[in-house]
């Protein structure tokens, strides 16, 4: 049953009736501040990098009570055969200490759009920030993308990875881009790259119509545009636990008042 009272003489150890269970669900949802029970469309989502990253954060904050959650974490981790789940950095842990809520967002772009020849190697990323609970303010946000070691033509190359915020879209010409950050990468380096997109996320939360996503581009040291995949950057066709995603840290800015029922 749902209710187990170990000390009381009466012992409430019984299975809840259907309507009792429904009431119980309603009450617990209310405590969690949710208007309804979420119905995620998971398919492969459970095995994606974003949930793994979040599990890692969960593990960090629950390290004191590790024994209680190890079972669940092991269950999840055992689902992965390939190495390299996204680990939280010390910077993430610093954000985490100050956060009331952390949220990871999966990339919604399923198919590459045909961009102009000038931007044919650009990759697009979009994130749905519409379900952020009211009263939560973004304190930090990161865009995370995994880079694998390059062992082909560009082995000894240095790349310039640029991350842009899309600030305007037009039907007849290229989108307007705002450069957020450029970073030099060694071809042989491997691991998660994180880019600070705090200001961009704040804008997206405050004005959802400005949320037109991100784009990335990669250039070689000679200025040649190449596909991010050639530079070892993992995209949708890569391993699930290395998919790019976005993570945001929130602080409650309003007192949550439960409405009377």
């Amino acid at each position, binding site marked *: *049953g*749902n*209710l*187990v*009272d*170990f*000390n*009381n*003489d009466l012992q409430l150890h019984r299975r809840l009736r259907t309507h009792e*269970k429904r009431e*119980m*669900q309603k009450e*617990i949802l209310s*405590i*969690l501040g949710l208007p309804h*029970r*979420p*119905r*995620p*469309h*998971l398919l492969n*989502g459970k095995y994606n990098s*974003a*949930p793994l990253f*979040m*599990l890692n*954060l*969960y593990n960090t*904050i*629950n390290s004191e009570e590790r024994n*209680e*959650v190890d*079972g*669940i*974490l092991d269950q*999840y981790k055992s689902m992965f055969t390939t190495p390299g789940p996204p680990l939280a950095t010390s910077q993430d842990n610093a954000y985490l200490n100050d*956060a*009331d*809520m*952390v*949220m*990871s*967002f*999966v990339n919604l772009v399923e198919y590459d759009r045909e961009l102009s020849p000038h931007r044919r190697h650009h990759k697009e990323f979009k994130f*749905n920030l*519409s*379900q952020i609970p009211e009263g939560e303010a973004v304190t930090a946000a990161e865009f995370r993308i995994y880079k694998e070691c390059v062992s082909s033509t560009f082995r000894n190359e240095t790349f310039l990875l640029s991350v842009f915020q899309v600030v305007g879209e037009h039907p007849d010409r290229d989108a307007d881009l705002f450069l957020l950050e450029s970073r030099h990468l060694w071809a042989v380096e491997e691991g998660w790259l994180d880019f600070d997109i705090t200001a961009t996320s704040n804008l997206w939360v405050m004005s959802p119509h400005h949320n037109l996503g991100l784009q990335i581009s990669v250039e070689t040291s000679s200025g040649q545009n190449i596909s991010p995949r050639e530079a070892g950057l993992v995209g949708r066709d890569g391993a699930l636990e290395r998919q790019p995603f976005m993570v945001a840290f929130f602080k409650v800015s309003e007192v949550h008042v439960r409405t009377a029922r």
Partner: protein
Amino acid sequence: STGKRRQQSRNRSNHPQEAHKGPGHTDYNSSDQKTACRKHELYVSFRELGWQDWIIAPEGYAANYCDGECSFPLNAHMNATNHAIVQTLVHLMNPENVPKPCCAPTKLHAISVLYFDDNSNVILKKYKNMVVRACGCH
């Protein structure tokens, strides 16, 4: 007298039979003990609620609750506010109109919940005051 109580406490801890009674145990008679305000264990299982498809962790949590009587003597092992003592006195003087103090949580603890939203984004949220750590009379 605190001195006398300390002496009693020392004597009690030296008594071999008392070792099994656990922390905070006092020698009130058994009927008082049964009805006294105290913490009761209560586990809320997300799995039993059929939510394992959207709550990733934890599987459930020990919410606990407070229940019992707050009447003189307000048990020495339990937290009672100064006002609870006054409330008890006024209740004794006017039991028809003035209720006894309430048995309620005095120490609460937070838990973190990791769950999916409708868009398959993942939320890790800290919920304050979810677990009752200790009960007392207010």
